[in-house]
């Protein structure tokens, strides 16, 4: 039997090119080569499938040049024309997750080649691509590589063979919101009573009709007159006073910082830096105004373009930070800003 041919997409980190300092690494195609996690996939594939090439791209490079990079990747995949494309797994790496989702979905949509990726459920790539492509649910860090590959490899073989794919809860991928008719082992009334009994006795049960989660906030009315408004700065880019006095973590931040900028005209490299561990800090450390534009807003304050720059800024690190933490930070920051009479907020992200 012919082996299933697979192309594999990974980032600069898993290709062992480098970390954040190489996040701008351009897309590269390694025909006939197996790299990083590809080796683990090859082991589980046995004689059934083989990786016939690896596509490597820096995470920032991909996200900043999304369309053209995707086009180049699709062109390469089309030329090799494998039976299947695997991207990642990306765990909780946001830019990598977006890239994996885009590559997998793009290949599937534009070339009709099945594709598969893997991510942690809070990766932003999940919400962007879960309805377009199969995303295996992984742990939030590369420590979960073995477990991820163990789930992804058999699913990849099924996709490559064109076998029917089971439900998300059986195969381990993130639900795509697709319902399929099938015969249950037990009739509905029995299942409902079992569920009710479990609920009454405080035991775990799984609903058969989960409510959709529409978490949207209505836009607030616009600022009437910016020249009279107090504008506050908030960032998830980790800008902190030099030395990071409140020890905001470089990833998975557990708190935010509030810093007084009364009399501060610009953020100098002597006074400020970034605590963020998820992007190359060189440029922010040279001039933190590149992330938190205090200099420009001070100018505008002097010129009367805005009423006032709020005398405190709020900062945290949005790098693998749990959604629940970010929600709590936002609610508390908002409360303090409202209490201080701020009119509007500029929030910057890296």
């Amino acid at each position, binding site marked *: 039997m012919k082996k299933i041919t697979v192309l594999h997409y990974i980032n600069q980190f898993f290709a062992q090119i480098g970390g954040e300092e190489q996040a701008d690494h351009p897309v590269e195609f390694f025909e006939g080569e197996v790299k990083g996690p590809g080796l683990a996939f090859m082991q589980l594939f046995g004689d059934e499938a083989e990786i016939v090439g690896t596509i490597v791209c820096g995470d920032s490079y991909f996200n900043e040049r999304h369309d053209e990079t995707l086009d180049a990747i699709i062109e390469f995949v089309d030329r090799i024309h494998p039976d299947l494309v695997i991207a990642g797994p990306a765990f909780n790496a946001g*830019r990598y997750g977006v890239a994996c989702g885009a590559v997998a979905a793009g290949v599937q949509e534009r070339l009709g080649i099945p594709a598969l990726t893997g991510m942690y459920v809070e990766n*932003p790539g999940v919400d962007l691509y879960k309805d377009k492509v199969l995303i295996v649910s992984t742990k939030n860090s590369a420590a979960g590589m073995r477990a991820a590959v163990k789930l992804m490899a058999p699913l990849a073989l099924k996709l490559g063979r064109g076998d029917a794919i089971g439900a998300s809860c059986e195969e381990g991928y993130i639900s795509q919101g697709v319902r399929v008719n099938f015969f249950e082992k037990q009739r509905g009334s029995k299942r409902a009573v079992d569920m009710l009994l479990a609920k009454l006795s405080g035991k775990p049960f799984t609903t058969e009709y989960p409510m959709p989660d529409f978490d949207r*906030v209505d836009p607030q009315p616009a600022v*009437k007159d910016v020249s009279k408004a107090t504008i506050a700065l908030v960032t998830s880019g980790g800008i902190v006073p030099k030395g990071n006095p409140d020890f905001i973590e470089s990833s998975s931040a557990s708190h935010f910082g509030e810093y007084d900028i009364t009399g501060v005209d610009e953020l100098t490299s002597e006074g400020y830096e970034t605590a963020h561990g998820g992007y190359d800090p060189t440029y922010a450390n040279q001039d933190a105004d590149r992330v938190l534009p205090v200099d420009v807003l001070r100018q505008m304050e002097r010129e009367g373009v805005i009423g006032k720059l709020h005398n405190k800024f709020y900062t945290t690190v949005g790098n693998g930070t749990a959604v629940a933490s970010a*929600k709590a930070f936002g609610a508390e920051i908002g409360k303090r800003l409202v209490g201080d009479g701020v009119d509007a907020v500029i*929030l910057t*992200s*890296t």
Partner: protein
Amino acid sequence: MVKEIERTGLPVVHICTVTPISLTVGANRIVPAIAIPHPLGDPAASHEEEERLRRSIVEKALKALSTEVDGQVVFTG
């Protein structure tokens, strides 16, 4: 964070490079930035040029804050 701050009653503009993420998460006013490690700067440009670039993005952000929206809008212009 954008949503939770907006929920407390303040209009928020989100300046970010990867706008699809911002759209998925649910920011209402979005202004695209330059690059992930320097959203409001360009290390390759001169200091004056860079400041001008930064100011133009902040001006877009202020325009976004003073524009009524009834859903998500990416302010590219």
